[in-house]
């Protein structure tokens, strides 16, 4: 390293520590209040997961002049799902496969500052159910926190990329991998992990930001004898899933973290519940739920279960977007979730009271409606698969009305921009375990195209009126996340690799560029030295289409695998 670059890094360090001050202060501030509007401080822009930036230098008037500022190869193909973060003048981005790399770049030029390459074992792929993705890193207090496919959590010096500590969160050989960035609240870094399919018992865990020492662990499924265990048959809760594998949210006002939990396991509802729609109290808490927790202790404050006694692999993990909504003339501290099960949930995030739940994917047919009075879906018994009861043409299919790809909320338009899916399935209960010596995996879940001649749709959703304002249909499902900006724009990419800017009010496409590989990640925006940039990671999934039969073939045919960061600006 030359002296010159050392001096350069020293300069960065001063900026980084100044920024660190604002972040810590901000973590104790209301999460919905933007700190430095120039930054993109956490994966979801803020801990409210709005993915809204007030920046408006790029707007509906000039977005047509958007052009490439730089691109950067992540040097790791397939399933790149990272949201870059920007702290001061530095952009941090992770790659897939572990992550294979975390990079620090000059956010304006793309010049590389450092590269972190964790030791990821070669065999992680077999334990990652749904591809070798990493969705980004979290910054706090001069450190970067990296969740890893091998079940570990690492802290890096944000200035140098040097590893400060690494701690084991979970044994990845149980099928538990970490793919999403953690949430940092004061001195605690909080993470979950995946693996609902493999017989794990989900949990959230907090670690000391300085030492990596575990401070608390809260299981998302109660053990026999604990409150809530009466919602499971026998000992099945001990392998009941409920993994919290996606991102959490944080509300400083009530000092609460929010996390969604995955489907219960095993898939056969007869094992853990009644096997039909008359499940009574056997709802399998707290799977397929939204959890509110005390970040100091991990204690669960309240829960909302979106899919009681799930039979469809409707994970409840989708991100909770926190925003204040005007409902019936009153400002309500709301929490919003576009659930995999096809319903859009709006709740009071302070009390946990559910306010509304409506279908945002019109083909949703497993339930005719979601009754907020009884806190139960009004199910169609024909669409609930169980032992001896295969079900056909269930919508949504197991990837859900919306999968992990993040939505955004614009306080300017009052709309949520949801990357939704329109795919259906048949389902029959079967033995899908790995049988050593024969390893026959049994029946699968045949995928069917949803009605209407489209498989995905970018939906602009009014969360107060609970109805669609505009939509843009897509020929494929599993398209990228969204970004909403103060320039009245929505940025969005699809599996063909088309990256586009739309008018947030009416969905008109104002700019479009193909980036060469499918896009799953959500775009971000930031400003450095007075210039606004829009960044997106491309590199389509490879594992997921394998679950989806002919629909999957179209998904992989749409674009080659890839792994790059593209950054645009109006030049």
């Amino acid at each position, binding site marked *: 390293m030359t002296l010159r670059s050392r001096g350069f890094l020293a300069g960065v360090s001063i900026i980084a520590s100044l920024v660190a001050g604002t972040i810590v202060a901000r973590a104790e501030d209301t999460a919905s209040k933007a700190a430095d509007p120039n930054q993109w401080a956490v994966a979801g822009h803020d801990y409210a997961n709005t993915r809204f930036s007030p920046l408006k230098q790029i707007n509906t008037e000039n977005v047509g002049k958007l052009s490439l500022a730089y691109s950067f190869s992540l040097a790791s193909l397939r399933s790149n799902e990272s949201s870059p973060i920007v702290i001061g003048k530095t952009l941090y981005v992770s790659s897939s496969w572990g992550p294979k790399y975390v990079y620090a770049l000059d956010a304006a030029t793309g010049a590389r500052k450092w590269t972190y390459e964790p030791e990821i074992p070669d065999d992680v792929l077999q334990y990652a159910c749904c591809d070798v993705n990493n969705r980004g890193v979290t910054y706090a207090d001069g450190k970067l926190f990296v969740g890893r496919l091998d079940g570990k959590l690492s802290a890096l010096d944000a200035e140098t990329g040097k590893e400060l500590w690494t701690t084991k969160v979970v044994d990845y050989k149980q099928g538990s991998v970490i793919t999403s960035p953690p949430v940092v609240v004061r001195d605690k870094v909080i993470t979950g992990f995946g693996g609902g399919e493999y017989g794990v018992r989900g949990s959230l865990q907090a670690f000391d930001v300085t030492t990596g020492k575990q401070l608390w662990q809260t299981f998302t499924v109660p053990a026999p004898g604990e409150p809530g265990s009466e919602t499971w048959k026998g000992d099945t809760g001990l392998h009941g899933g409920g993994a919290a594998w996606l991102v959490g949210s944080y509300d400083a006002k009530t000092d609460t973290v929010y996390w969604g939990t995955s489907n219960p396991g095993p898939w056969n509802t007869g*094992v853990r519940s009644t096997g039909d729609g008359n499940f009574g109290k056997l709802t399998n808490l707290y799977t397929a739920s939204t959890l509110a927790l005390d970040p100091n202790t991990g204690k669960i404050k309240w829960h909302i279960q979106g899919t009681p006694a799930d039979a469809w692999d409707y994970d409840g993990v989708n991100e909770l977007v926190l925003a204040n909504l005007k409902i019936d003339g009153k400002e309500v501290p709301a929490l919003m979730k576009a659930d995999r099960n096809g319903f859009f949930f709006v709740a009071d995030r302070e009390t946990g009271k559910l306010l509304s739940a409506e279908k945002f994917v019109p083909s949703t047919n497993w339930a005719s409606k979601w009754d907020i009075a009884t806190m139960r879906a009004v199910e169609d018994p024909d669409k609930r698969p169980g032992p001896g009861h295969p079900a056909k043409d269930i919508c949504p299919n197991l990837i859900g009305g919306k999968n992990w790809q993040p939505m955004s909320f614009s306080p300017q338009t009052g709309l949520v921009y949801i990357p939704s899916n329109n795919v259906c399935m048949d389902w029959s209960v079967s033995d899908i375990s790995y*049988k050593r010596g024969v390893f*026959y995996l049994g029946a699968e879940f045949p995928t069917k195209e949803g009605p209407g001649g489209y498989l995905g749709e970018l939906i602009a959703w009014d969360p107060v009126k609970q109805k669609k304002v505009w939509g843009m249909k897509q020929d494929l499902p599993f398209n990228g996340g969204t970004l909403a900006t103060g320039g009245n724009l929505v940025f969005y990419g699809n599996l063909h690799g088309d990256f586009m800017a739309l008018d947030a009010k009416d969905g008109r496409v104002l700019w479009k560029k193909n980036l060469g590989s499918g896009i799953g990640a959500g775009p971000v925006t930031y400003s450095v030295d007075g210039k606004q940039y829009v960044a997106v990671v491309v590199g389509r999934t490879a594992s997921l289409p394998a679950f989806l039969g002919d629909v999957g073939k179209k998904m992989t045919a749409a674009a080659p695998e890839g792994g790059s960061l593209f950054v645009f600006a109006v030049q």
Partner: protein
Amino acid sequence: MCRDLGSVLRILAPVVLLLAAPALRAGAEEAQPLRLCADPTNLPFSSDNPATPGVYLEIGQAIGKALGRPVSYDWYKSYFGKRTVRVTLLGKQCDAMIGLTPSDDFMGPAVIFSKPIAREGYALVSAKDRKISGIDDLKPLRVAVQYQTTPQNLLALRDDIQKVTVLSPEEGMQALDQGKVDVAFIWGPVAGWLNKTEYGDRYAIQTTDGEGLLWPVAVGFAKGSKELRDQVDALLPEITVMFGEIAAKYGLPNDTPIKLSAAAGPMLRHASLDTAARPIVLAQAAVSPTTTAATSDASVASPPKPEAVNDGHEIFNGTCAHCHGPDAVQSERHIDLRLLHHRYGDDMRDTFWKTVHEGRPAKGMPSWKDVFDDGQLENVYAYLLTVQNPSD
């Protein structure tokens, strides 16, 4: 109980001699190595440790000897499931893979199978003095069940049996040994191997039979290796005898399976295990002679039996759908089978039989008569009748 190696060799010797006979028929050009795909760490089935190669590799070595070909190995973890097959066998890295379940919907027509050489199943493992001859005998007991398996599904219907969930056969045997359960209902071959190597043959192992409980095991080949497959099939009588001997060496159960079924009807709708399953007793086999007979005169006027249609549908989606689309939904008109009646009218049935029996090699349609029997193909036809385009 432990058979010493010498006696195994004495028993094997005549079998190997028998197997050696066909080698004389094989030409000199056959001296190419027989490449086996195998998992290096999957005892009792296979291992890269020459001292304990495992049941499958010993069978493979004997097959190689009988064919006059030396045996070589391509190692790949079987945990990856179908990907293992795709990368190794279909990637032409090896000629054969021992231990696949012969099933139409395993990987479509890309993989072909020998006749079953053995069967493996879930087993009830318990102390030797405990008699278990049916599910009711489990009533007062604590039973370890493997997560997400047929035993777990089966016993879920019985609230009067106390289940303890385990994630692996190893964990099931431990629970048994530590007195946490009275019976372990786990994957039999592995239970047998553990019983022999770690538990001093303390436990009795009762193999079970019933839907999803007992699985035929065959040798798998890529579809281009029909000749090799036929050579292996010709050795079948010797191989099945030998399997028993080798399996005993590794502790695999060699008992008569007892039939278990759920209280009420079939609880699982299963991928059919019907290919060439003649020597295998399968409960609730998908194709029954009565169904076949009933549907032989199927016509539009008298709709075929739902079981026949269901079975045909399953075969279709497992195999035919690869080209003709799941549920026969296909946008390419020339391979859209919903247009069969529109296109062939009264000749539809004859055209179907001619095509499935003989194939249309020039157009990529294989002949299926060696893969499915006529009863199964009849069921496919019964299913196709239900999806014909009604506009004609």
